[in-house]
């Protein structure tokens, strides 16, 4: 038995997510979130070995069904699946019968007829994963649905913060950018508030979702108020195509008002962490000096993504219970 398996076995009391799917952070309890983060620590160790593979998901089939282009998330899931010895299959829009006008439900049911164990879904429609979970018996893992949630991103963000700060409770975390269209924002709000962080969200009023304060966050359009004494600053991507909606006058003006510059960063705590879920627009939401500077943990986030996704896959597959059965 590998070191990882032994470590995981010691936590057997809480080794599985007792749910079929991971649709969002909204449904998770703080204990379940902690379980994923703790498990990810063990998984991270696997990635440091010369042979980066454990047999945890041997014999399991995982389909990565991506209806939206994605480099980071899809690759990260695929590496995570392979490190757990799962058989993986990637289906991207344009290479499947989607272009023939097949519905999402039909595509999923046809895939399911071939008995996969899990489907990792990325889709442009909010709620696509909920929809699929009602249609399919397979476990559905949300890899980003529309403007709704991107739970593994929030988990890897939390993992990265916890790794540095050793806790989440009580930290001031400022999230700045396009709040309205961001699934990363929604997942992070759920996760960070559940674990007791002081969450500030900031963006132009045109990009702040209605009633966002009811999520238990402080919303402001003053980037100075948001970042002052912050422990963590998380930037969200400004999608260039949103310009057509005239949410703000120009990218130049956005950067002037909201762009994360070194001067603004100085207002935060001296050990501030700078985070970005990627892909970045340098010179729009973040100055290159900040992105490339010593406070940036942007590449750590990417690295941790693999460990966190391994943890999610492992726990949804039944955790140590499954390994014993196998």
């Amino acid at each position: 038995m590998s070191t990882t398996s032994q470590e995981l076995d010691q936590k057997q009391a809480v080794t599985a997510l007792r749910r079929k799917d991971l649709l969002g952070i909204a449904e998770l309890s703080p204990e379940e979130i902690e379980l994923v983060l703790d498990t990810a620590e063990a998984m991270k160790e696997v990635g440091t070995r010369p042979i980066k593979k454990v047999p945890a998901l041997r014999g399991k089939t995982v389909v990565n069904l991506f209806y939206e282009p994605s480099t980071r998330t899809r690759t990260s899931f695929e590496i995570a699946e392979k490190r757990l010895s799962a058989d993986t299959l990637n289906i991207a829009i344009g290479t499947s019968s989607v272009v023939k006008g097949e519905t999402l439900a039909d595509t999923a049911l046809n895939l399911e007829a071939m008995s996969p164990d899990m489907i990792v879904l990325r889709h442009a429609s909010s709620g696509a994963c909920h929809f699929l979970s009602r249609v399919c018996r397979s476990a559905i893992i949300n890899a980003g649905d529309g403007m709704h949630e991107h739970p593994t991103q929030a988990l890897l963000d939390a993992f990265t913060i916890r790794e540095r700060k050793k806790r989440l409770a009580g930290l001031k975390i400022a999230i700045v950018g396009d709040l309205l269209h961001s699934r990363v924002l929604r997942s992070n709000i759920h996760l960070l508030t559940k674990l007791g962080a002081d969450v500030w969200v900031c963006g132009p009023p045109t990009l702040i979702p209605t009633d966002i304060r009811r999520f238990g966050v402080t919303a402001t359009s003053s980037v100075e108020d948001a970042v002052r004494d912050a422990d963590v600053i998380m930037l969200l991507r400004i999608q260039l195509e949103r310009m057509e909606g005239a949410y703000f006058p120009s990218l130049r003006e956005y950067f002037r008002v909201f762009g994360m510059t070194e001067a603004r960063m100085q207002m935060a705590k001296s050990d501030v962490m700078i985070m970005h879920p990627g892909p970045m627009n340098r010179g729009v939401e973040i100055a290159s000096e900040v992105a490339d500077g010593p406070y940036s943990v942007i590449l750590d986030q990417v690295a941790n993504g693999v460990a966190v996704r391994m943890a999610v896959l492992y726990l949804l597959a039944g955790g140590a219970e499954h390994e014993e059965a196998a």
Partner: protein
Amino acid sequence: MKRLLKGGRVIDPANGIDGVHDVLIEDGRIARVGRDLPVEDATVVEIASGLVVCPGLIDMHVHLREPGQEHKETVATGVASAVAGGFTAVACMPNTSPVNDNANVTSLILAKAAEAGLAHVYPIGAVSKGSKGELLADIAELKQAGCVAITDDGHPVSTALLLRRALEYAGMFGMPVIEHCEDATLKGDGVAHEGFHASSLGLRGIPGAAEALGVERGVLLSELTGSAFHVAHMSARASIRAVRKGKDAGVRVTCEVAPHHFTLTDEALTSPIPYDTNTKMNPPLRETADRDAMLAGIVDGTVDVIATDHAPHHYDEKKVEFDRAPFGIVGLETAVPLSIDRLVHAGLIRLPRLVELLSTGPARILRVPGGTLSPGSPADITVLAPDLKVRIRASQLRSRSKNTPFDGWELRGGVAATIIHGRTVYVNPEMGSGVI
């Protein structure tokens, strides 16, 4: 041929009647309403105690989908659904394929309705040719063919100028303009009410102001032209404020509210089934303050009509991602239970007011027969069972489509029977035998 309905509580708001009376029907018309009428040569229909006899219900906002979308509904299945829901008449929207913007389509609908021989069907014509919002449809032709009102429902009339012309021109024939009130730019590609739940679910929002702007526009143009303006499927609290203000100023504005807008809120987007496409309609389910404003308008008289916006869709069309699903739910067979349970038994209004909303009001606005039991009126009668326990079962609906968010709901109040031109066209099988 004579029939005597004996012993029910008769409610006829137009004549101020509410009490145990008999109703004598002769040759398909109401002959007399009174206490202990002599039987003579009439066939007696005993109405069990506890049942209510009222003028036939009229749903002034339904989509029958024929011609062109018969996989969702036909005139025949639509009127079967109507009578099972207690409606003796429906007014159908022109957004068929082709659009009902000419006498041929109107005649086709009327021919199909005559063939079905159940509820009366009153076609509503398009404001503009093809409902494209450019040129007025041939409104006199539509009127002559049998249309009772005009609308570009599904969308608002494209410009204030065209709406003004439509009001002026249709006013010449005494036809109201029914408006799907909405500012298209504010609605954008929204799919749900702009509020906490849409924010939480990541759904694009439609603010209440999008509707209210359309209502304000219509009220102003109704005042300008002096013509009758009717607000379809009102949902937002700012809309009802605009209607109330217009009425206070003497403007000829009327409005309707759909049962889903006084029973549900946008919380239904989240639970019991997250992203249930049967909670997607336009206008959307709004927040509690809006729902409560609809209830207040029903109580204080601002709301003239309850209309269902019966919008059948095939399950294939609804079994998709939320943002790709069409707007709308079926409503003909759930309106009475929802209204009696949530309005009457909830203590907000009494039955005579409900009959006004479901019968007298729509008859007055559309200027169609019915809405009353006055002697000489057609014997279109609905028998209500206000205490009947009803469990809504989507699979049992007579409509060709089953897209309802009320599946499994248990409500108190239902339809006992539906009578059209003196002929009983529907008896609720749940009533047991011998009650009517």
